[in-house]
């Protein structure tokens, strides 16, 4: 296990170096000029050129590239070219806000998806199963922003049960914070919930037929326990290993959700930075996101190893 961890950490570092380098060049390949973004609409070409120089955008790529890594290794994520703020000043809290949304949505979709998947599997080919399959298709088919908009319209405007509030930090007012969390989390969870339902159903249909489930029944275990401890537990293995892919999908979807609900997360920071070609911020956010994804993949692989004792040996 330790060897596995060491090796995977080594790979993770290589991956991050790769991500950092790719994003450095990718960001600069996008047409558009950060100097233009910093100066607004009415600036003349001459002003833009001067500002470009002030932003060191005229310097050779290679120098900028090496400088980026040199600073990064000193723990300096850089400073926004547009707002002049140090990236470190904003990034941690924004990542925190995004992760809160994403992890909660993941938790919700795991819990709901597994419960529904279990119901669908134990009632396979009965009306409840068909309804759940159709329902999950519904969740998969509707674009995130439509779900978000509809929820806003219904629960905030028409029947103001959960009006969007000013963003309140959980430390100041946990109740208000929870209230503003509900709609974005539900929006985000809708699609992945459907995917997890389908996956759980498929996996459980397999395990329900497994010999060891029959063994568990033969032992005299109560049916509930047979399903929970024996059928469901092993069915979780494929679900867990797909959950990591699902998490990255969720991180991707937060762009829309954060925009719609005005959630101050990492994605909106990133979208702003992309819109302004604020290279240091883009680089920092993408690196942060990549770190999360790579870590999550690692944790996922570890989880499978822990949950499935067989995995270690092959």
């Amino acid at each position, binding site marked *: 296990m330790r060897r596995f961890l060491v090796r995977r950490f080594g790979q993770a570092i290589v991956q991050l170096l790769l991500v950092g380098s790719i994003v450095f060049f990718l960001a600069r390949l996008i047409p558009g000029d950060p100097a233009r973004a910093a100066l607004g609409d009415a600036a003349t070409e001459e002003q833009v050129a001067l500002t470009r120089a002030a932003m060191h955008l005229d310097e050779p790529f290679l120098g900028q590239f090496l400088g980026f890594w040199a600073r990064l290794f000193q723990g300096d994520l850089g400073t926004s070219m547009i707002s002049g703020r140090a990236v470190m000043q904003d990034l941690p809290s924004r990542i925190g806000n995004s992760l809160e949304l994403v992890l909660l949505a993941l938790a919700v979709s795991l819990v709901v998806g597994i419960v529904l998947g279990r119901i669908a599997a134990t009632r396979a080919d009965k009306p409840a199963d068909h309804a759940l399959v159709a329902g999950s298709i519904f969740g998969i*088919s509707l674009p995130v922003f439509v779900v978000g908009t509809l929820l806003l319209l219904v629960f905030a405007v028409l029947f103001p049960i959960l009006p969007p509030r000013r963003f309140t930090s959980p430390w100041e007012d946990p109740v208000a914070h929870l209230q503003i969390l509900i709609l974005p989390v539900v929006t985000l969870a809708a699609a992945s919930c459907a995917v997890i339902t389908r996956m759980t159903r498929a996996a459980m249909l397999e395990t329900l037929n497994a010999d060891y489930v029959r063994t568990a029944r033969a032992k005299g275990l109560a049916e509930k326990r047979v399903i929970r401890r024996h059928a469901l537990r092993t069915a979780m293995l494929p679900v867990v290993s797909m959950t990591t892919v699902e998490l990255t999908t969720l991180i991707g979807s937060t762009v829309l959700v954060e925009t719609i609900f005005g959630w101050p997360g990492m994605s909106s920071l990133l979208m702003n930075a992309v819109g302004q070609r604020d290279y240091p911020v883009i680089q920092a956010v993408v690196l942060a996101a990549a770190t999360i994804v790579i870590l999550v993949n690692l944790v996922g692989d570890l989880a499978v190893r822990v949950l499935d004792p067989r995995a270690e040996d092959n």
Partner: protein
Amino acid sequence: MATAPESVAQALPDTPSRANGGRKPFFKRMLANRRTSVAGAFLLLIVVVAVLAPLIAPHDYRDIVGKPLTSGGTLGIDDFGRDVLSRLIIGLRTSLGVAVSAVLVAGVIGVALGLVAGYVGRWVSTIIMRGIDVLLSFPPIVLAIAVVAILGPALVNVVLVIGVLYIPRFTRIVYSQVLSIRSMEYVEASKIMGTRPADILAKTILPNVSAPIIVQLSLSVSFAIQMEAGLSFLGLGAQPPLPSLGTMVGAGRDFLEVQPTLLIYPSVLIILVVLALNVFGDGMRDLLDPRHRGKNS
């Protein structure tokens, strides 16, 4: 697949299997399953509509045919005064075209990578699978914006972007499946015969990992329709006035309270297509698997 004529099959002596549906030709078996055939018929209809879209649409999708946001035409008039039905038909064509080709791109590349990584193993799989992780770790929208911004917002590029973004889904699934199949004795039997590795992958392993691929394909089409919609939401999908179901949903959002049908019609169409694809995909998975032959008649 060698299929014997039915008469021969029935003339056979006592068989150990009771799978008597097993001898029917593929197509007949498909028709025998009501859910699969209804879904298949619907998809066929959709494809015909998509292919013949310009001929079927009652109006040019760009023409002003009435007062904006009224209920003229069959399904109403949109905010630019255009016929909603005609735009739905053309939008269907756009969305299906983009989504299906994107998923095919992703499927072909992703499956190939997964097959190679799983079969060859060792450093090859490390490189492929860690590369896939790198791909996964880019926020999809960033990758999309960057690539589309560099290549331009043409639909082909959108197909490429979505295709590349969806590669990991296929690679991961295929990889884990191949790992469990590559040591099966029938694979070893192929090796001993001297079958080339490429043939073993394509003809022996691929068909046996096809079930999850088919499910993933049908699921991914829905994600791709959405992704295109998401990209249009960010101004990167189909370029106006060309509609796609996604852009129509996005545009309909603004008129949710004025004329909700602008949002409802394309949404319902997406749901129907995805539902049909999934039902059909599940049905195909069972039909293609000889072990499921004759199960549900």
